[in-house]
């Protein structure tokens, strides 16, 4: 059964600093997603990664995928307060369902 683990679960960082969120999944994945969720809101799609070595960037966020290591990373560059949110990774491994990690609650402090 596909399992997805994220770490850290909580991340407090200062504005201007860099950090990486890690997402490990247990079995072969067809797609790896990263989402952002603000309190009380739905999921906002950030990135969809399809193949080994895929790298996507949007603003201060960059996601990558290593299918051999079953690892995806979300790198935050020069964090700003507006990035404060909960970030989820989700894997879709040859079936209908997305399997989500527990999420990383990011707080960016001035």
């Amino acid at each position, binding site marked *: 059964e596909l399992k997805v683990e994220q770490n850290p679960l909580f991340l407090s960082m200062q504005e201007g600093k860099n950090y990486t969120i890690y997402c490990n999944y247990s079995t072969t994945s067809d797609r790896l997603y990263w989402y952002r969720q603000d309190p009380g809101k*739905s999921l906002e799609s950030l990135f969809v990664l399809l193949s080994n070595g895929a790298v996507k960037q949007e603003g201060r966020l960059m996601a990558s995928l290593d299918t051999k290591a079953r690892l995806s990373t979300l790198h935050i560059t020069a964090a700003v307060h507006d990035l404060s949110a909960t970030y*989820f990774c989700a894997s879709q491994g*040859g079936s209908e369902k*997305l399997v989500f990690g*527990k999420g990383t609650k990011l707080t960016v402090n001035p």
Partner: protein
Amino acid sequence: DAGVTQSPTHLIKTRGQQVTLRCSPKSGHDTVSWYQQALGQGPQFIFQYYEEEERQRGNFPDRFSGHQFPNYSSELNVNALLLGDSALYLCASSLGPGSAYEQYFGPGTRLTVT
């Protein structure tokens, strides 16, 4: 182009009652999946509907049931509500079933069971 829509936005029910949540997929999408997100947790897959049939089901009891209509919209029904059913219920639609198609999420329905 309208995205995925869900109704109602919020509702409050009492233990033992029944509830129906509704979802309209994104234009052109024929597949609907439902997820439950408890507070502080990641979403959990409930089931997926395609061609008016349930294709796959997650680890949820039979109290959770669904339906898909010919226009591809879908309902999620929960019977005999428990306090633990309080959650954000998310609907996602896609161009087809399986992992070949990205799922697009709606705004969610917040269910509170008292």
